[in-house]
């Protein structure tokens, strides 16, 4: 009795710590504290779970925790900040898989489950399995292991049938069928459905999908918590389900895409229309020395970094350049588009890694009015998020997407490796504009040359 009270109290405290922890993560000042609170809740909940009466297999339990936790610990310590999105996808997929496995064991067990419990067990299993295999595919795509995004009506039809098959098997299970073959078919269909629904989605849309799977895993965990009669799992799972859904919507909105659009329609699927708009004009090149002079004698500079900067590992050099410019009295700010990097906030992490303080970083709404007053805007490794076509060209696939108005700055320097179009393959009018100069070269090399240039002045 007292033992059970201790366990229940601990779960309650853990649930409170999770909610307070997530709340504290809403401000950069308290964010670190927040994750530590949530971590304390997790340790507490895990430790008291060993005290449950009537449990067996303790040795297996400890081995599984050490093995799973160990693998995750090592990989999490090693992963580069640029690869963070796909790593989050992996850990999320593991959670979904765990929820599905819990459901499988409950469905295999001898005891009879109440109808509501059965329905939620099956629902959690379905969602968890889809999140598991879907996250694995998301990882493989962002890691570059799968490069193709096959998309056809036939594939969608096959996928629909498999999805319906999984649902049908799930309904049969929920009605009390206990056939092992049916159970296996159910999980197999759900797993294939998760793969097929993620496969056609392009890399640029993947963050939204990872966020969606994160929310789905939360739901699955909440449902399995109900099956096990465990309020801590129910609360933590549903809190994540709700917050993850909101986060997914925010991301999709920032990218000007609806969720249905991301899942069921390919980006640039109707490519035929866009090639018509020939921008005309030519791109003007600038060399690093001239660009350095322009920067050193400016009053206000705004740097717009994109994922290309991170790939070139140029963030440290860019920060060095910023410090040099600030020593000369230039006011420098960083402007970050919501989808810069591979998911909202990813670029902030990459800049923080280089040592850029977060109060120098502004988001789209804060900074857009300031471009008109800036002497120089430096675009490094970003493309679509600064394309004025999103404002003016109704035929452009990105029309309507909020962009950073770098074209309104006095001058714009674009650091770019070559003349080609970027990730999305959309022509960028900014590069041809009168006040834009192109500094060709690898991001890191270009930044080093700018530093050298500023130092000689």
């Amino acid at each position, binding site marked *: 009795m007292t033992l059970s009270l201790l366990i229940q109290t601990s779960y309650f405290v853990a649930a409170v710590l999770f909610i307070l922890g997530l709340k504290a993560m*809403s401000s950069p000042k308290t964010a670190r504290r927040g994750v530590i609170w949530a*971590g304390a809740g997790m340790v507490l909940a895990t430790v008291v779970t060993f005290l449950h009466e009537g449990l067996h297999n303790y040795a297996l339990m400890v081995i599984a925790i050490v093995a799973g*936790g160990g693998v995750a610990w090592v990989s999490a310590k090693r992963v580069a900040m640029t690869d963070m999105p796909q790593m989050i996808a992996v850990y999320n997929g593991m959670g979904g898989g765990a929820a599905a496995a819990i459901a499988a064991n409950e469905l295999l067990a001898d005891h009879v489950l109440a109808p509501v419990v059965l329905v939620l067990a099956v629902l959690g299993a379905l969602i968890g399995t889809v999140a598991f295999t879907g996250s694995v595919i998301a990882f493989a795509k962002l890691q570059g292991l799968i490069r193709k995004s096959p998309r056809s009506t036939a594939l969608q039809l096959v996928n629909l049938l498999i999805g319906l098959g999984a649902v049908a098997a799930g309904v049969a299970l929920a009605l009390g069928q206990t056939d092992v073959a049916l159970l296996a078919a159910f999980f197999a269909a759900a797993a294939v459905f998760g793969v097929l629904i993620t496969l056609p989605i392009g890399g640029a849309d993947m963050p939204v999908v990872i966020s969606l799977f994160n929310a789905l895993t939360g739901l699955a965990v909440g449902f399995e918590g109900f099956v096990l009669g465990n309020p801590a799992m129910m609360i933590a799972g549903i809190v994540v389900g709700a917050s993850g859904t909101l986060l997914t919507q925010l991301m999709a909105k920032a990218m000007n895409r609806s969720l249905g659009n991301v899942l069921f329609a390919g980006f640039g699927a109707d490519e035929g229309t866009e090639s018509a708009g020939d921008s005309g004009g030519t791109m003007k090149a600038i060399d690093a020395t001239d660009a350095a002079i322009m920067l050193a004698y400016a009053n206000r500079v705004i740097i717009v970094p994109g994922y290309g900067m991170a790939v070139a590992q140029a963030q440290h050099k860019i920060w060095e350049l910023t410090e040099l410019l600030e020593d000369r009295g230039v006011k420098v700010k960083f402007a970050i588009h919501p989808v810069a990097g591979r998911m909202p906030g990813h670029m902030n992490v990459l800049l923080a890694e280089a040592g850029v303080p977060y109060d120098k970083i502004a988001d789209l709404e804060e900074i857009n009015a300031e471009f008109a007053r800036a002497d120089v805007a430096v675009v490094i490794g970003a493309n679509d998020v600064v394309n004025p076509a999103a404002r003016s060209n109704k035929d452009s696939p990105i029309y309507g997407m909020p962009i950073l108005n770098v074209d309104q700055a006095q001058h714009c320097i674009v650091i770019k490796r070559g003349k080609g179009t970027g990730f999305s393959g959309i022509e960028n009018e900014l590069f041809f504009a009168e006040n834009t100069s192109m500094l060709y070269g690898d991001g890191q090399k270009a930044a080093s040359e700018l530093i050298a240039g500023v130092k000689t002045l």
Partner: protein
Amino acid sequence: MEGFIALYIFMLAAVAGYEVISKVPVILHTPLMSGSNFVHGIVLIGAMIALGHAETVAQQVIGFIAVFLGAGNAVGGYVVTERMLEMFKSSGEKRT
């Protein structure tokens, strides 16, 4: 557990989750997604209970997989979130 009590818990937890996130600045979206990913690592305790109740070899295998995956979710989620948040500093703070 009583069905309706569970329903209330689900409803209130959903409201709490929605409210907690709605005031988060964009700069913290990635760490926050990672943080919420860590929080559903609580699935680990459910996995431990499932393995603890396993009787047949098949159940033990599935339970073992569940605990392995759940532990990976919790530990990996924590470490990456902590690594990211550790780096966020303002101009005023000393840098290392």
